[in-house]
């Protein structure tokens, strides 16, 4: 069964019938979600209010999670939605609310010349990465190992099996790391003073 005849029998959500193939569907999804992610990340960079920065970041995370789903990484996409767009964003927004940061005059670092230099260097970095990508991916993907005879199991089940066999030590160490971080964050926040610094 080729990639083009995947949805033919279902009929309900078949876009093939009106001449939009699977490649085209992937392209449309990619461009919509990719531009959403890029525009929202620019919103993080440019908005002066930290609360709207945080909300733009949440939108970027949501867009990226759907890009992950489009790449057949269903578990990673859902974890991204739950952990990043859920937990981490709630943490950040709560801290921002705690601080009352609305009046932010000098939110960008000073120096017109220095900032221009930083932007130019960032542009150079995009160009360098892009040219490296353009020259090297042919080489990577045409390596002989990629074209396996039988399809590889990429399901969530296979991911779980890999995580709990080959990577089980790293997984346990990650648990210890999270415990340390929890203790460390509590210890840092317990330094006398409280959020109302005169106590």
């Amino acid at each position: 069964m080729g990639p083009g005849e995947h949805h033919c029998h279902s009929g309900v959500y078949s876009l093939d019938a009106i001449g939009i193939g699977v490649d085209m569907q992937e392209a449309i999804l990619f461009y919509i979600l990719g531009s959403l992610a890029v525009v929202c990340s620019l919103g993080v960079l440019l908005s002066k209010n930290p609360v709207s920065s945080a909300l733009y970041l949440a939108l970027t995370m949501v867009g990226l999670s759907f890009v992950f789903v489009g790449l057949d990484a269903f578990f990673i996409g859902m974890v991204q939605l739950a952990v990043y767009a859920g937990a981490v964003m709630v943490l950040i927004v709560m801290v921002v609310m705690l601080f009352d940061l609305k009046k932010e005059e000098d939110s960008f670092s000073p120096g017109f010349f220095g900032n221009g230099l930083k932007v130019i260097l960032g542009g150079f970095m995009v160009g360098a990465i892009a040219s490296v990508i353009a020259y090297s991916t042919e080489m990577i993907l045409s390596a002989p190992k990629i074209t396996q005879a039988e399809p590889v199991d990429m399901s969530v089940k296979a991911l779980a099996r890999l995580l709990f066999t080959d990577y089980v030590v790293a997984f346990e160490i990650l648990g210890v790391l999270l415990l340390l971080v929890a203790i460390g964050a509590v210890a840092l926040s317990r330094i006398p003073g409280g959020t109302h610094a005169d106590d």
Partner: protein
Amino acid sequence: MLTTDAVLSVGLNHYLFLSALLFSVGMMTVLLRRNLIVMLMGIELMLNAVNLSFVAFSHYTQNLNGQIMVFFVMTVAAAEAGVGLALAVNVFKKFKEINIQQFEKLKG
């Protein structure tokens, strides 16, 4: 050089370009902003861009190890956000604002 086929058939390159763009925007956020929390958001953005290239490589080479790495990166990023925000709370307690310039006064 830019043909319609290269635009319309999305491949690994497209995802890597998107990842490079997001990484650079995250880097700009860290470089240009002075608010500590917004800089943390820039770091999250960079980590997410790296995650995107991991997932793209994992999909196009049919290898699950990349997704495992994304799982680990996400956990470490959550840990980093926790500690970073705790530090931000401390800085705010001392100086009543969380400008990155206050960090140089944190001695001892």
